[in-house]
């Protein structure tokens, strides 16, 4: 199966992994770069598990990230990290499960805007809760070093990649594909549309929850506005579009592209970086609807 594609998933994985191992071995700068790369891969693969598969574009994936970060920050020094990070994933998944039924009834542009609004709503509710508790921010003293966090993040990125890869090849994935192609038709031929959507939606929140928890530890600082930043949701979608959400290689390519571009330009001029990112997004939507992955397909012989 893998060989059928232009550039095998394995090669891309190896490249990304090499960069991350490089990050582990050499100074703090590369550790941070590798951590960012692994984070975007984990987030975008998870996003793709739901949005890429079903065609329901979520513009509010940051909600899982933020909830996860909040769980870890809230329970910091109360619950050990080996427990609180998985709990962050569970909490994000449970939240998604809770809201899934009403949210997933909504379709098309309404769904896109709804996911965004929902993330903002949760953000402002938690902001008021934190203000009520008298905590405008929380400092996480004694969080693990970036090296340790990088390992966890690489694990999450790998897990998300494998999950997406597996779903693509499963009955579950076929069902989701059918929903993307024509939901009504899928329902008519007996695919349990609602159950599949709810499951995929909840599953796609678990890893971002844990990623959020790890990133809170990474910044040793927690503030609601920072972890619920809508830019995170937007970036995930941008990576998926640029890389291509068709299979598990797309998000990795997209994340490599984004992190590369950001490392080259972010410090020189964040504005030019973002302008280029916006132009790349526009270019991909217009001329490369299957993303960088589509380019690979074309090179490897279209089929």
């Amino acid at each position, binding site marked *: 199966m893998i060989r059928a594609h232009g550039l095998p998933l394995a090669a891309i994985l190896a490249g990304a992994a090499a960069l991350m191992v490089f990050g582990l071995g050499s100074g703090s700068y590369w550790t941070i770069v590798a951590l960012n790369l692994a984070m975007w891969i984990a987030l975008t693969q998870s996003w793709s598990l739901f949005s890429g598969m079903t*065609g329901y*574009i979520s513009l509010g994936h940051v909600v899982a990230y933020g909830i996860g970060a909040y769980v870890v920050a809230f329970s910091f020094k109360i619950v050990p990290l080996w427990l609180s990070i998985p709990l962050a994933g569970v909490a994000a998944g449970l939240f998604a499960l809770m809201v899934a039924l*009403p*949210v997933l*009834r*909504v*379709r*098309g*542009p*309404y769904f*896109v*805007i*709804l996911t965004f*609004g*929902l993330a*903002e*709503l949760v953000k*402002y*509710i938690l*902001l*008021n809760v934190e*203000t009520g508790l008298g905590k405008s921010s929380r400092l996480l003293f004694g969080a693990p070093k970036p090296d340790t966090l990088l390992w966890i993040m690489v694990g999450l990125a790998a897990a998300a990649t494998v999950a997406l890869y597996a779903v693509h090849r499963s009955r579950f994935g076929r069902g989701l594909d059918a929903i993307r192609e024509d939901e009504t038709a899928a329902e008519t031929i007996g695919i349990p549309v609602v159950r599949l959507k709810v499951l995929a939606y909840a599953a796609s929140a678990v890893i971002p929850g844990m990623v959020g928890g790890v990133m809170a530890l990474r910044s040793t600082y927690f503030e609601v506005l920072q972890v619920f930043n809508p830019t995170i949701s*937007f970036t995930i*979608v*941008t990576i998926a*579009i640029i890389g291509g959400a068709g299979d598990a290689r797309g998000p990795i390519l997209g994340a490599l592209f984004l992190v590369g571009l950001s490392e080259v330009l972010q410090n020189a*001029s*964040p*504005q*030019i970086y*973002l*302008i280029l*990112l*916006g*132009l*790349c*997004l*526009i270019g991909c*939507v*217009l001329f490369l609807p299957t993303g960088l992955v589509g380019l690979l397909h074309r090179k490897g012989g279209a089929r």
Partner: protein
Amino acid sequence: MDFLLSGQLLFAALVLGSVYAVIALGLNLVYGTMRLLNIAHGEIVMVGAYAAFWGFSLLGLSPLVALPVVGVLTGAIGLFLYGTLFRAQLAANKPVAQLEASSLLLFFGVSIVMQNLASLAFTATPRAYQHLDTVYQIGGVAMTGNRIATLVVSVAILVAVLLFLNRSIYGLAVKALIQHRDAARVVGINVDRVQTVSILAGFGIAGIAGALVSMAEQISPFMGFPFTIASFVVIIMGGLGNIVGGIMAGFLLAFIEIYAVALTSANFRSILIYGIFVGILVLRPQGLLGKARRS
């Protein structure tokens, strides 16, 4: 609770409502006729605000005098985007769902580019200027001149657009396109021309609203986002593509916002807006005032 009956709150709600209604009207025209989800709409407001600011501080031009120029400028931006990004897609008659999704992503790209171009050109430092800020006491209510002007101009725009849509042949064509694209084409409406008119009007109005807003609020490259959100809340409350519903919803949102904040505290403003937003989408996606539409 006496303060709830004060004219001060009423005036604030009317001014805010008229601004919401105008900005959302622009968004609604573009969505209604072409099914383009313009999440860069707030950035057009931002451009209008900057244009008014520079006109005032470099040329000493009153924003009220500059309004038509600002409208033409942002209308031209709309035409440029229409020609480069959307005309071909619209002509290809792609499925609505696909058009909505790709327009959302394209406009998202446009929004990032515009914010950062503005930030490069004008720096991220917020700016402001003083114009027509004399306070008038009318019936015990303190009003600044620029807010009165904002209210008057906004209401004039709303009336003008409604008249245009109901009386002029082009306006009727715009309405026809909103109601049924294919049928409009069949009865011989020049779809491309009507789309051009809608884009010009939609973007032009947003720019003019930006010029109005700039008299009373700070101007920055990132000021557009809250307007994008507010206008989406408004047009969804009113029913996507429903022009009159959108105008009513603009005032409704402003009244809810102003009075609820007065009753509670400013901290709850965002919870309230997004709460209404999520609630309506989940419970009544066709909008509070809208009829059920085929999606």
